[in-house]
């Protein structure tokens, strides 16, 4: 079934890359964009969101803080933290939050792998 993906990144370019890549993989899925953590939380209140893609390095609350907030509110939501910052501490913190580390620049292969896993998880939760 079609899903709704929340894309959070302070860079419009990065949001464009993510939404275009998502449209290539799942043309029937919807996407909601947010430029920071506050907008992301507002978007979450305003509509149903199934999956989140979050940038790490953002002004205000960074991606890890937002991912932790989202995890508290939505324990079963598949979350990916998207970043070029491949330091092991970052990867470890992302995993501690039960989120998936997806490297930037975002590729179709990496996003597709995450979305496949996310979709399976959502189906399992719904059963």
């Amino acid at each position, binding site marked *: 079934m079609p899903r709704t993906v929340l894309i959070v990144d302070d*860079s419009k*370019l990065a949001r464009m890359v993510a939404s*275009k890549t998502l449209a290539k993989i799942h043309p029937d899925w919807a996407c909601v964009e947010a430029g920071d953590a506050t907008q992301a939380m507002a978007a979450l209140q305003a509509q149903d969101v199934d999956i989140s893609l979050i940038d790490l*390095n953002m002004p205000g609350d960074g991606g890890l803080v937002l991912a932790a907030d989202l995890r508290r509110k939505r324990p079963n939501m598949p979350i990916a933290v998207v970043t070029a910052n491949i330091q092991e501490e970052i990867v470890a913190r992302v995993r501690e939050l039960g989120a998936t580390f997806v490297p930037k620049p975002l590729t179709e292969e990496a996003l597709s792998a995450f979305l496949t896993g996310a979709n399976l998880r959502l189906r399992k939760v719904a059963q």
Partner: protein
Amino acid sequence: MMQISDIERDAVAEIANIAVGRAAASLRQIVGNEVLLSVPSVDILTHDEASRVVAKPGNRSLIAVCQNFDGPFSGRALLIFPEANSLQLVRAILGQELPLEDIVDLEDEALAETGNIILNSFVATMANVFKRGLTMSLPTVLRGDGGQLFAGAAGEKELVLFLYINFEISQKEIRGYLALLMDIPSLEMLRTLVQDYLDTVSPKGAA
């Protein structure tokens, strides 16, 4: 006055963000501690203004590893930190057990080599995103204030694209900056490359 559009500024900052993320991962491997990064800032400034940003109060005495890059766009990449942090950084690179005199002897060499890895990682990632080759000069270690570090990159009143990111090595009290100066003829090319990149990203080619 040279202007860049919001989306071009956004694109340069985002590509720099990706590039500095890779560079930070290289630095983390060298020093063994996490490297914290700020959000990059991108501006078109005069050479003078850029050097004033770096030479904030308390930053009069700076040390920098500098590499010039050349290709479709050219400029200078610098890894800058207060001179007071230099020996701590060298210690973080070489290990705590080395005696001070050895560290002093190896200071420039260790800084140049570390800078080379980080700056290459930074510039190479930008080159890869744009799918263009860039050549890098050998690293040089410079000491002085902001103006001295940027000398030779452009005239004092000339405009440069100035990209600036703070970094901090956790548990080491080492802070610094990664800066990129690009001259205006290069900036024109960079804008073309950014637009080409945006065209591949945006379905309508419009940004």
